[in-house]
Every structure is written in C-alpha cells, then in structure tokens.
C-alpha cells in the first residue's frame, strides 16, 4: 500500500519535473531577448531538475537519501538565482540591448550612480 503510494508520488514528481524542463526549453527558444530567456532557464529549469532530484529521494524511501536529495534541491534553488543575476548584470553592464518592446530599464543609469 505505502509502496504503491510512494511509486505514484514518484511518478507524479517525475512527470511534473520533466514538464517544467520542457517549459523551460520552450521558453528559451520562444522568448525575444537575453533577459527574458534568463527567466525561463533559471526558474523553470531549476524547478524541473529539483523536482526530479526530489523524486529520487521519495523513491528510495529512506531518510538519509531523502535528506541528500533535499539538500541538492536547496542547493540548486539557492545557486540558480545567483548565477542568473550575475550573468544578467554582466551582460547589462557590457551593453547587450533589451528587446525593442521592453517598456522599462531600471538599470539604465546604474553605472552613473555608483
């Protein structure tokens, strides 16, 4: 009974993680410029791989493995925004342009202020 429930939960986690990864890949191809593509890759992509790792922890069914999977999940969730933010800031400072339909660039005179 409990094994069947864990298997069904694992199946749900696996499918939703793969769905998030697919959504991230679609967004990476469909969005217009670098800064919007970064949203897809760093949010949906991270959640996708994190859910798949959680699925491994749930499927194993013992506490140490689940704790390791949870640690990996938190590691990804913590590091993905840092790397995305660093890359976006570097690209913006170097001068890669926003898409023409962007309505607002709050960091336009960031370099002048510091």
């Amino acid at each position: 009974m409990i094994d069947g429930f864990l298997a069904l939960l694992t199946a749900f986690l696996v499918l939703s993680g793969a769905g998030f990864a697919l959504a991230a890949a679609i967004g990476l191809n469909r969005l217009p410029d670098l800064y919007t593509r970064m949203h897809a890759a760093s949010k949906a992509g991270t959640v996708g791989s994190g859910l798949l790792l959680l699925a491994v922890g749930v499927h194993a069914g013992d506490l140490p493995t689940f704790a390791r999977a949870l640690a990996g999940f938190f590691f990804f969730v913590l590091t993905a925004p840092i790397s995305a933010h660093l890359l976006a800031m570097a690209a913006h400072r170097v001068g890669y342009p926003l898409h023409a339909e962007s309505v607002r660039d709050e960091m336009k005179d960031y370099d002048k202020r510091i």
Partner: protein
Amino acid sequence: MTAQMVLSFSIWLALVVLCVSFLMTVWRVIKGPTLPDRVVALDMLTGIVIGFIALIAIRTGFTLYIDIAISLGLVGFLATVAFARFVLSRGGREGPPGETAKAEMIKALAAPVPETRRSPRKKPATGTGPAVRRKAKK
C-alpha cells in the same frame, strides 16, 4: 495496472520529454545570437543533464547518483559564474548577429601583430659597467 507499471511508464515518458527539451536547448546554444544567450542555454543544459541523472538513479536504484548530480550542479554553477566574469571582462565586442564567431576569428587573424618590443635603445657613449669604472679611476 499496478503502481510500478505507472512509474515505469512515466519514467519512459519523462526521458522522452527530457530528450526533446535537451535538443531544443542545444538548438539555442547553436543559434543564440550573443554569447550570454549561449551561456544561459549551457546553464539550462546542465540542469537537464541533472534531470537525466536523477531518472537513471530511479531506474537503476543506485542512490549514489544523487551525489553525482549535486557535484554536477556545483560545476555548472561555477562555470556560469566564470562565464559571467568573462562576459564582463571581454566587453561588448560583438559582430553582426549570426556570424559573430566567424567575424571575431577573421578580425583576430587580420589584425596586425602588436608591436611588443620597443625601438632598440641607443647605447650610451660611456658605459657604467665595472670595467668602465675601473678605467675611469685610472
């Protein structure tokens, strides 16, 4: 239809979906007009490979794969940080979109070799070596 059959079918389906998203991300790496686009796609590629590793861990039952996935995530994070520093230090040197790498290579090949050596220094009429000093004393 037991729960194990559902799990095995959903793992197959997830493998197929991950393959599709992997190919789409590779397409962005190839096509991406600028360097940061490619870096974002490479970061995403690392995440998809972590997903593949997790699926293989579920299929084979080896939980050791979790550690491999975590270390791959660490490597991907460090690679993205290093690429961000590289983008910052390289500046916005970018050719027309589409043939950036080719234009860069042609520019690098056609550029004149920078003159590193200064013009030869004129030798002073009187040296300052020990022999000269000895001569001056006499």
